[in-house]
């Protein structure tokens, strides 16, 4: 099975067409396997007592960030479905929805990046040396974000930036209300764009699946709640985080 599909250009030379969509099934299989594996492991591990949600509520996510997260989540899902369904044979008028959602995603991402750099602490997401000890050392508790969360976030960041970047480049070969398509990109470059766009899409499919899986896991569900209502309880904070590295205020 090829990783990329190849075709002939206008002069019969071989050029890359894009990622091979057979990989879609590989990605889905691998993700599924990973989830099943994790389910099994967790089933055998002795369950630690779950921290109570009672008590004071500490702010984890400001409303504006939660808003951003959910807008981004929706647009990513819209993009994945409008992009992938036609490939697997579900035909509908997808392109406009796809690029509009893409613009929304781009906007929110830009907003988030600016906010993270100037109004938040980007180093919250920085993977420091001691973070790496988390998996092996019970006593090693994370600051605001666990190593897994940082990993997920940073991987997402890379893929989203990649898919957005290539997506924007591909606007050149599309008719939009603002301009008509041109052949600015030669066929080889176009192939690269589609390959990267497709590859990052495949990555996002896997990561999104895992992200959703963890979001609904019982021991992590309070994080999901915090992404909806903003707060975690003192108990949850104490048992999952190192107050020395992260001490949130009481949420109002």
């Amino acid at each position, binding site marked *: 099975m090829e990783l990329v599909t190849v075709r002939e250009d206008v002069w019969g030379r071989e050029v890359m067409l894009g990622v091979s969509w057979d990989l879609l099934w590989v990605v889905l299989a691998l993700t599924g396997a990973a989830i099943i594996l994790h389910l099994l492991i967790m089933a055998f591990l002795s369950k630690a007592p779950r921290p109570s949600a009672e008590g004071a509520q500490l702010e984890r996510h400001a409303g504006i960030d939660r808003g951003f997260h959910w807008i981004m989540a929706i647009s990513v899902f819209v993009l994945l479905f409008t992009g992938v369904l036609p490939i697997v044979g579900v035909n509908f008028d997808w392109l406009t929805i796809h690029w509009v959602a893409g613009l929304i995603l781009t906007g929110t991402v830009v907003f988030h990046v600016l906010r993270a750099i100037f109004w938040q602490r980007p180093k919250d997401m920085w993977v420091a040396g001691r973070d790496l000890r988390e998996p092996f050392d019970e006593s090693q508790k994370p600051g605001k974000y666990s190593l897994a969360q940082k990993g997920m976030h940073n991987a997402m960041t890379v893929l989203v930036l990649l898919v957005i970047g290539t997506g924007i480049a591909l606007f050149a070969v599309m*008719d939009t209300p603002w301009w008509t398509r041109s*052949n600015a990109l030669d066929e080889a470059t176009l192939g690269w764009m*589609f390959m990267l766009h497709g590859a990052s899409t495949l990555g996002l499919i896997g990561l999104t699946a895992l992200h959703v899986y963890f979001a609904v896991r019982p021991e992590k569900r309070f994080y999901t709640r915090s992404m909806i209502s903003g707060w975690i309880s003192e108990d949850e904070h104490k048992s999952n985080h190192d107050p020395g590295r992260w001490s949130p205020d009481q949420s109002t």
Partner: protein
Amino acid sequence: MAAHDVMPDIELFQPVTVEDASTLAERLGSRGWILAGGQDTYGWLKDRAKSPRAMVDLAAIEGISGIEAVDGGLRIGAMTSLTTITRDERIRADFSLLASAAGKVASPQIRNQGTLGGNLVQDTRCWYYRRGLSCYRAGGNICYADSPEGMNREHAIFGASRCVAVSPSDTGTALVALDATMIVQNGDAERRIPAREFFVGPAVNITHMTVLRPGDILTAVELPERWAGADFYFEKVADRNVWDFALVSIAGAFRSEAGTIRDARLVCGAVECVPRRLEAVEAAIIGKPRNEETGTAVAALASRGAAPLNFNHFKIPLMENLVKRALRA
């Protein structure tokens, strides 16, 4: 590269039942090719621009050719030759629109061999695509025709979505105007698809011009009574009067009462990837007499929303003129 010309190795099946044909086609999937009259097939194969592994020839199947009356309308087998259609008394009497359209297809020999089904499902004539280039329609990710200096005189002015190819079928235009129903069989299951939904544009499916999928066999077309014996108009404007595809064609069906139009269909060919119904015009002429004035008054509605390419903005006045003529006649 070569100017290929001989038929490549390909398997041939000549089943005698639709079920077998459907089964074969489904099994073969993208490696299969349904063969009707073959007039759009052999070029693809000889050019090696498409390389299926097997042809499923429908010619030997009984019951999917010929014309029969069905409750006020007609049922025309998909394998009925275009010549038969142009000559059939019932069609000429009640649905002369289809006879006229079929009579304008290609050349006498092609009409003798070519079938209604084949004419409906034939592929587009975009010369870049026909050359075998891997454009959007061929599964690639580029359109050569809709490019800054693309030679796109014959291409679409409506409904383009990355691909700008147009529907080449003369009979398709007529059948949409006649509110025909396509009868499609898959295995033992039968689907009835309105002509208008039978054709799909690039926005929805950029590699296929119809809703047919592997295993689908177009077995017949039904003409409903609704338009039987109505007033019709068909005109095809092409560079040549033989062996040519429409630059723009128009099919009109009109029901008039007391000198005014009660119901109407106007459909243009070769302006979009599918036969284009001119609903705005249809709506505007209801209750008006079918004459020069009406035509002049509504013609502009026909081309509203047109997005011409480098070399085809002549299609705008041309289709407006054809609307005038359809209403004048």
